[in-house]
């Protein structure tokens, strides 16, 4: 899998021309971002389900009298922090996706651009 990815990247690097420069940047960035963003979506979906389970558990335990009012309050406060942590992580992951997309695009055109200008611009 990793081998085929690096193969196609190497091929993309070879195929760069002045005419398709924008196209190469766009497709590399789009592919990398798409893959990463899929991971963010999967993470957010999985974690949302876990949060719902915990919330349901607090409600049921309070109704059954298995937790005191004070315990339920602390657990709910804690749950809010866990939720915000999941969203903070998802926000960070989205930034990583953007960063990876730009850097992957940069890698694909680096050799071509540097060769054309005659020095290490990128």
């Amino acid at each position: 899998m990793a081998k085929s990815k690096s193969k196609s990247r190497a091929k993309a690097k070879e195929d760069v021309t002045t005419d398709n420069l924008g196209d190469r940047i766009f497709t590399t960035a789009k592919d990398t971002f798409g893959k990463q963003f899929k991971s963010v979506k999967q993470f957010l979906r999985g974690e949302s389900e876990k949060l719902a389970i915990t919330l349901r558990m607090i409600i049921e335990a309070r109704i059954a009298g298995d937790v005191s009012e004070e315990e339920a309050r602390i657990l709910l406060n804690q749950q809010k922090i866990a939720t915000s942590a999941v969203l903070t992580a998802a926000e960070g992951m989205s930034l990583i996706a953007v960063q990876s997309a730009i850097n992957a695009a940069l890698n694909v055109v680096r050799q071509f651009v540097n060769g054309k200008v005659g020095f290490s611009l990128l």
Partner: protein
Amino acid sequence: MIAMPIIGRRAEWPRPHHRLLVLWLCAALLAAACSGIELVSRYDEATDSALTALQQKSDDFIESLEASAGTSDASFTKHEAFYDELDRDVRRLEFRVSSIPNNAHTTRLVAAVRQVLLGSGECSAEGTSLRDLHCLPANQATGPSPTALKSNRRNINQTIGAALNLELMKKQGLADSE
């Protein structure tokens, strides 16, 4: 001038919004210069290890507390040393993550880890942590109820897990951009 049919327009490449994206990417690439851009810090193995250790330590502790719930073995005073140790571990991690540039998200996540494990450090009925749950007046002698501990454990694992997921995504992101 004859207007182009819609089908013809659809076949155009790049489309107007794609051109904008390409322009934006070109500008970003120029700004990135030779080293690429860094919006989020690189993967840090020490952060990964410290978060994993914290998760294991707190999980083991909650498991043993759950097993002894309702007895004097689960009293708060018997476990105060554990909370002090946890405080020290979290403080070290806070120092580590705050000293890494572009690490705002992980720093916020470690602050959340502190909140769910130790809270503000004062026993509060309006608190947010395992420690707050343990030092409630009704729980000091024999510990929190097993049900409360189960739910608490999930919240803690979820919070530490979010921080770990982000750290591992940094590693993956780095590999994808190479």
